[in-house]
């Protein structure tokens, strides 16, 4: 489906958003709005996210069974959909994080010589 492009997905490596969501939820259940703001703040506002694209990602993760949704009451007493990590989601997070770290190290090793040459 090439026509669809959310900023997060097009600018970040595939699966990164999923990882970020899972990471956020490790601290406890949260609703969509909290997750969006947490990701933005957590990245020191480097990742400028169009918050809307978070929701399809949440839906996808829920369908995969990595997170579960339930209806709860928010801080200001409103009905809100909360998400929490499932055991499967936790496993996925560990696996993906280590894969991500490998990737970062690999990219880091490749990029280093260029910087030295410039400097």
């Amino acid at each position: 489906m090439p026509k669809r492009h959310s900023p997060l997905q097009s600018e970040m490596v595939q699966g990164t958003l999923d990882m970020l969501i899972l990471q956020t939820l490790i601290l406890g259940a949260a609703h969509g709005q909290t997750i969006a703001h947490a990701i933005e703040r957590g990245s020191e506002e480097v990742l400028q996210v169009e918050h809307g694209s978070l929701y399809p990602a949440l839906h996808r993760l829920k369908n995969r069974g990595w997170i579960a949704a339930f209806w709860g009451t928010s801080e200001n007493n409103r009905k809100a959909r909360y998400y929490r990590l499932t055991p499967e989601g936790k496993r996925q997070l560990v696996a993906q994080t280590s894969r991500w770290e490998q990737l970062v190290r690999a990219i880091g090793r490749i990029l280093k010589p260029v910087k030295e040459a410039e400097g």
Partner: protein
Amino acid sequence: MNWRRFFHRDEGDAEQSDELDFYVDATTEEYIARGMGPTEARAAARRMLGNTTRIREEVYRMNTLVLVESLIRDVRHAVRMIRTKPGFSVAALLSLALGIGANIAIFSVLNAVLIRPLPYPGSDALVGVFNRLAIQGQVFEDAELSPSMYAAGKESAKAFESFGVWIPGAATVTGTGDPEQLVTVTATQGVLPTLGVSAYIGRWFSNEDDTPSSPQTVILSYGYWQRKFGGDREALGRTMVIDFVPHQVIGVMPRNFRLVNFAPDLLLPQRFARSGLTPDELSYTGIARLKPGVTIAMANQDLTRVWESWAESNGAGKMLSMLQIRPNLRPLKKDVVGDVGSVLSVLMGALGLVLLLVCANVANLVLVRAQSRRQEFAIRAALGAGWGRIARELLVESLTLGVVGGSLGVALAYLGLRLLVTQGPAALPRLEEISIDGTTLVFALLCSLGASLLFGLGAVLRSGIPGRMQSARGATQGTQQLRAQNALVIAQVALAFVLLVASGLMIRSFFALRAVTPGFTHSEWIQTVRIAIPEALIPDSERVIRMQSEILSRLSVIPGVTAAGFASGLPMESEYRNGVLIDVEGKTSVDQMSPNRAVKRISPGLLAAQGTRLVAGRDFTWDDVLGHRGVALVSENMARENWGEPASAIGKRIRQRGKDSPWLEVVGVAENVRADGVNLPAPAMVYFRAGGRGATFAIRSERAGTEAFLREVAAAIHAVNPGLPLAKVRTLNDVYRRSMARTSFTLVLLGIAGAMALILAVVGVYGVLAYAVGQRRREVSIRLALGAEPRALTWLFVRKGLTLNFAGGMIGLLLAGGLSRWISALLFGVAPLDPLTYIVSGTLIGVAALAASYIPARKAASVDPMETLRGE
């Protein structure tokens, strides 16, 4: 794929919407807390979230099944198209409903009669037990068993798990209310266990019930039990007076119980005397359940052995070898179904052709409509619709038409079958089992889908092919479009021709059968009753004939009886056929094999009762019979074969083969009788004077068949001896009609198919020509304006119609010629290539087509040129 999610996708979307609303609200509050104005804060929150519709769409798409979703949309669109074009839709749906409905109906019959197993447990192991025998070189496959054969089989056959014989009959019940004449089946103990149908209440017959000295018992049918005892379980053990003898009720059979093709009110035990099993005539139908693993061939072999030892002990070896009697077992299903299979397959084929015709017609309609939608398709293609998209839509539309038409067809079939079952054609066995079941519904679905694909693909190919859609404007018809329509018309005419020929041939057969002189007259006035006088009752054979003569004289005085007689068997009573080797004095020599002739033993007056004319000489007299005179009668064809002229047969002598058998003088020649069925040639026949214990009485009266008459007949017979069982109580017409039933049933259904085909073809021709006229209005107007003769223009279109018809007719002629061999088994007295039928069918189609093309052609010529051209 997650179907649960799919079915809850709208709910999911609502929740998603709520969640997004919550985001906006929560973020707005946050922004207000940071010091923004409410309106500004809300706008900022919205911006932060992005395009909510797109988010919802994305989530929705994750929840849905794209193919299913768009299919549903296409079906909705199709239903809308069908609704908005009522004229087109009614025509298409109606013809589909008729075509598919007819096929479903005939298929349900086929399914119930031929495909479904018999309604008995383990019915595959059930066999009918018959004999094969030869008379006059003609082989009969279904001669029945004699009591002593049954006894031998029961005692020493190893292939059967259980075995019994039965015979249909009639009985009079007296004692409660008016005397009532009931249909009975008399069966030996083994018959019910063989069928494996348990009694609803009570029990089956036991060996004791079969013993002549024990008290008489009876098993009731469910229907009779309900009618007479109101379904009271206390009926068990009660006593009923049947044929003046008290019988104890021992059981009730379940509802819908049928014994092969009989639904008797009462089941009576068949009680053969333990010794002296005479009259030993072949009149009992055998039924057996094979032991597991035993084939019919093995059982036949086993029974051949049994018959041989039976003949040895019984002294029947001569009869066995003379008639070449061999056991002939066959699956019970064949007994039940008979030879209706060929009829049904021909009908199925005919209605399949009708469905093809319907498809051609609907394809035509769809084509015409696709033509008028060409602009629409072209515009949609220009706007980016893919070819597949448009093709799919057309197909879905056709499928929707097909499925809706098919459902209507199922409804029609249901009504049609109800009608069929209430009419109860004698040619159809297992009538009460006919219903629309799962198999039929699958067939209906396949019919609908197949038909829709057939005409839907046509439409797709004509209007959906890529590159064909450039012409948004000036979409005039191409020659290709015309060619497709012409081909359809030709196919329709050809198919209709085939069906007309088929029904024409059946009509000719029917009239040929009706025109046959069967050798008896007014069969509906001939009441028959079979009486076999048991040796246990009358041991002396001389007294048997006196008793029969006494019965006959009592029957003759019943009011309304004009003639009466009895014979060893009446015409078409195939179970009492007999054949004997006959020597003709001066014609057959001792060392030569003399031909085996059909033989009947008849009483004086029988020929008159049957309505069989005497061609020469005289009938038997009672003096002949009681005086044991050496006289005989022969049939006309027997006389002609041996002596040239019927009259010259008188005084000649014949005898049964064998040195010691006496010569008999031929004293009379009787008209030929079609004794094996109206559709079979009359056998050369020899009549001996009456004798023997088994006889069918023929009583000629206009009151035959009425219940009052039957009661008087039963009373007359029982006045002579109340212990005589009455069997085969029917009119000769029942027997006669059965031999016509197959032809008339086929005739009616093929006639319907033929009429449908003719109408469909006419509609098809009319439709195509009317459309062509409409398309060529402009051309016609110009021609008229330039001075063309209107009559010449009319002729232009009529000629087109006739050309198409002629082409169709020629193809139909070839097809019909090829296919008619298939139907030849059902024909009588007419060749499959009967020229008259072909000419009449051709003329009929030609005239119909002429009319169908003349009307639109006239319309074309009466066009007002100015008006048409101005309208352009």
